[in-house]
């Protein structure tokens, strides 16, 4: 077997297949938005997906050892961009999340997720503790995680701040810890909840949490989005209202129906069958990531795979949890289904990482 043939043989086609399937579902879904609004949003999304596939291939092709080497540099660039967005970012709805590159908007917090994944993995590789990590080992991890989180929170973007935190915690969960360290972290987390609520969260963010706890309050304010998403999902029933016939979308009752609330849109038109299929695709993708992690040939690869799985997992949980009125409203996108260039490219790059690692896995 030639080396090339061996490489091709190791490609995780299931990941590619799932990504393409998800992409197809999303283009189909956004096509109905286009019918309703008379725009070509589905075509633009398709272009981003195609560009994304190229990015995925490129990321998969570079040996991840090289990626590991440039990870600290990448981290530095991301931190600079996050600082830059606070200074010159485009202000939308009272927050600065976007850098205007002229032809396209760009969200540095998306890149921050990849930077965290690569650099935490890098650190775990470089500082092995076979007996388990101690409390003092966590200080650099906290710093690595804390700096971008702090910057993203200033935009403010609570969703992405939490995203970074959850990805970090998930990657930590893939490691062993001394009992004392584990207890201390849990305790700290509990103790910090009160000052977090009081001093860090802004009023509108608290509103969203409160709205979730009391769904009937203020149906025109913070509860409006959540309420309309629930109506959209529920009115879809088992088989949905049909492509282009989602009244919540077509009538404009469901806000952000092609971005943050795209899952409500899909559930309304395709019903439990369509929404269940999408859930299954995500589940299989995450399972594929965990499998790659277990088969990775080093700690860096394993952690990157876990990080990618966590990225998909938390995006799905926070977004769909929000749409289903289980979690507060945060601007977290649904991977590949939500319209948005930066989001699509980030997820595709993450998928590229996954392919990269499975390509170079240990073969028994």
């Amino acid at each position, binding site marked *: 077997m030639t080396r090339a043939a061996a490489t091709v043989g190791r490609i995780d086609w299931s990941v590619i297949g799932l990504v393409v399937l998800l992409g197809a579902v999303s283009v189909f879904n956004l096509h109905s938005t286009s*019918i*309703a609004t008379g725009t070509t949003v589905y075509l633009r999304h398709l272009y981003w997906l195609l560009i994304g596939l190229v990015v995925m291939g490129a990321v998969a092709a570079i040996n991840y050892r090289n990626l590991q080497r440039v990870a600290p540099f990448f981290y530095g660039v991301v931190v600079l961009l996050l600082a830059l967005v606070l200074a010159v970012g485009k202000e939308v709805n009272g927050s600065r999340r976007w850098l205007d590159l002229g032809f396209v908007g760009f969200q540095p917090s998306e890149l921050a997720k990849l930077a965290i994944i690569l650099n935490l993995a890098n650190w775990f590789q470089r500082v092995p503790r*076979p007996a388990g990590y101690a409390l003092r080992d966590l200080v650099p991890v906290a710093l690595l995680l804390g700096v971008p989180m702090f910057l993203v929170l200033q935009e403010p973007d609570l969703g992405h701040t939490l995203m970074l935190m959850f990805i970090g915690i*998930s990657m930590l*969960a*893939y*490691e*062993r810890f001394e009992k004392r360290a584990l207890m201390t972290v849990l305790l700290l987390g509990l103790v910090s909840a009160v000052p977090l609520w009081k001093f860090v969260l802004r009023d509108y963010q608290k509103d969203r949490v409160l709205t979730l706890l009391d769904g009937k309050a203020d149906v025109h304010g913070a509860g409006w989005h959540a309420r*309309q998403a*629930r*109506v*959209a*999902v*529920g*009115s*879809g*029933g*088992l088989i949905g209202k*049909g492509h*282009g*016939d*989602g*009244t*919540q979308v*077509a*009538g*404009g*009752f469901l806000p952000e129906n092609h971005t943050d609330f795209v899952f409500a849109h899909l*559930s309304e038109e395709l*019903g*439990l069958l369509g*929404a*269940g299929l999408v*859930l299954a695709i*995500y*589940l299989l993708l*995450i*399972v594929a990531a*965990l*499998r790659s*992690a*277990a088969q990775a*040939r*080093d*700690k860096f690869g*394993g952690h990157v795979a*876990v990080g990618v*799985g966590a990225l998909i*997992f938390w995006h*799905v*949980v926070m977004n*769909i*949890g929000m749409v*289903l009125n*289980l979690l507060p409203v945060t601007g977290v996108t649904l991977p590949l289904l939500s319209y948005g260039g930066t989001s699509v490219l980030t997820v595709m790059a993450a998928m590229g990482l996954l392919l990269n690692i499975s390509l170079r896995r*240990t073969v028994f």
Partner: protein
Amino acid sequence: MSDVYLDSSIVGYRARARRLGFVVFAAFGVLFLRLAQLQLVEGDALEAASSRNFVRTVKLPADRGTIYDRNGKVLAVNRPSFDLFVTPSQVKDLDALIDGLRAVLDLDELDLVHLRERIEEPRGMWRFRPFRIERDIDRKRVAVAEALRARVEGLSIRVRYQREYPEGIVGAHAVGYLGKPTAPELEADAEGRLSVDAMIGRFGLERRFESVLAGHDGFERYVVDARGARQDEGWAERAMSGIQSRQAPERGHDIVLTVDVEVQKILFEALANYESGAAVVVDPRDGTVRGIISKPSFDPNLWSGRLTPEAKRLIDESPYNPMLDKSVHAYFPGSVYKIVTALAALEEGVLDPDDPIDSPGSYEYGNRVFHCHKRSGHGSLDLNGAMAASADVYFYKLGEALGIDRLARYGRKFGFGARPGLGINGEAVGTVPTREHHDRVTKGGYQYGLALSTAIGQGDVRTSPLQMAMAYAALANGGSIFPARIVDRIQNEDGQVVSRYDSKPRSTLEASDEHIQAVSRALERAVNDAELATGHLAAVAGGRVAGKTGTAQVMEINRGRGRHDVKRFQNRDHAWFAGYAPYEAPKLVVVVFLEHGGSGGRDAAPVARRIIEAYHQRVEPVFSTSALNEPTRR
């Protein structure tokens, strides 16, 4: 390869990857269950919520039925009324619109500035809501507005029904008026039949027959988007499939009354000189009400949604209580009640009508002295004379012999103490006092002397003019008590009868013809006796009227402060006349009640005469002679 680690720790990673996998499965399980809960369990409710989002339902109000008098004259009818609306979101050229409206509405510059603000002010969804700038504009203005609408955008004209009462204040109490439903009524309205801008029967027959007259509103449904703009194509068309888009309104039924507008006018004219009172004309042969009025009256056209606060205040503060329907409200009857005493005494065998009984100016009973209205007394009288002179002592003696409970029994036989059956305006039951009644309500309990007061219609007796009419009708028709009937039939738009109200006596006086005749004869004397008749001012030339006057004493209740004229009014006696004509074969019963009107003989009797004469001349001949065509003595 050195970088491939095959040490023991890889086993740990595998276990942890599996553990993370469990967490992932669990989380997805929660998401899927929640999804299923919303889409399957709550699916129907949320689909309904979704429909509420995009389906706009517009009520198509039903045309309310018409109320006719017995001759087909319109008493209450719906007429289309045109209201002017502006939809801010549709206004393209505000200046042109405002300028054009100058020609349609009588607005000064300040009004125009306000109007401009009202159009510019709304934000968001409110911009898509039309709001009314003027209601009920006349035809000429409708034409101008239509022309303006063709030139500028944002203006619309909506048709609605306005209730109209062509006869105005004449007979307003019986017909009634419409009003908006109250908040409690809206809350209690489970079927959602009412709405804030609905007009429902508030008074009189409009209220009693609300369900008959109202009909059933229809609706029109269409799809709107989140901004409230109507959508008809594509998704909207498909979303409407399976949804009923239109339900035609069902017109209410018409009501034909037994009342005659001409009689109503006659009653109004006859009572012209009296502020407060009521008059009733009934056909004794079938108990149908031919005329029924209450004074002072009100204009139902104003009350049906166009009453100004100032006009309402005036009515609310009037000492004459215009909104009380006095024809069905109970008052002290005084001597018109003596028919009960007379018939009871005859039936119970305590009186021979021809026996003379001494009737002096006063009667001592126990430690009380009961006076006659004529302090000098009447001497010895038989029943005819006693009724004619309204000799109180004669009736005190009958009352003493009968006792209050026997009097009450006959009072009930005449229909007193029970609703006559019109079913409108809080129709009073009145009071027929018994021993038990006095034990319950009178200070010191029942005393036998109360039977004496009751015998002349004082004490605690209370009757309504309508009850009195039905009682006298029973004497006039030989003993049948009819339920008061004012609605002849209910019919649909095409004039087909939906239901007809029969005239069936509900009871009889259970008295012998001989005794009924004796009381009737006495009533004839009370009008026509040359010497004694207290009701002689009710007599007509060329015909015989039978009847009785009544002057009911009113307790002086009003010694305190207040307008002098109001106090004087309130301390005057009630004046009654109840009777029928012609005596030989009665065709109409007339009851005149003048609240604090003075004296039955002086005030009420001539009013009754005018009614009977006018009825004979303008409605149907009552008397066989043409004598009444001569100028009557007034």
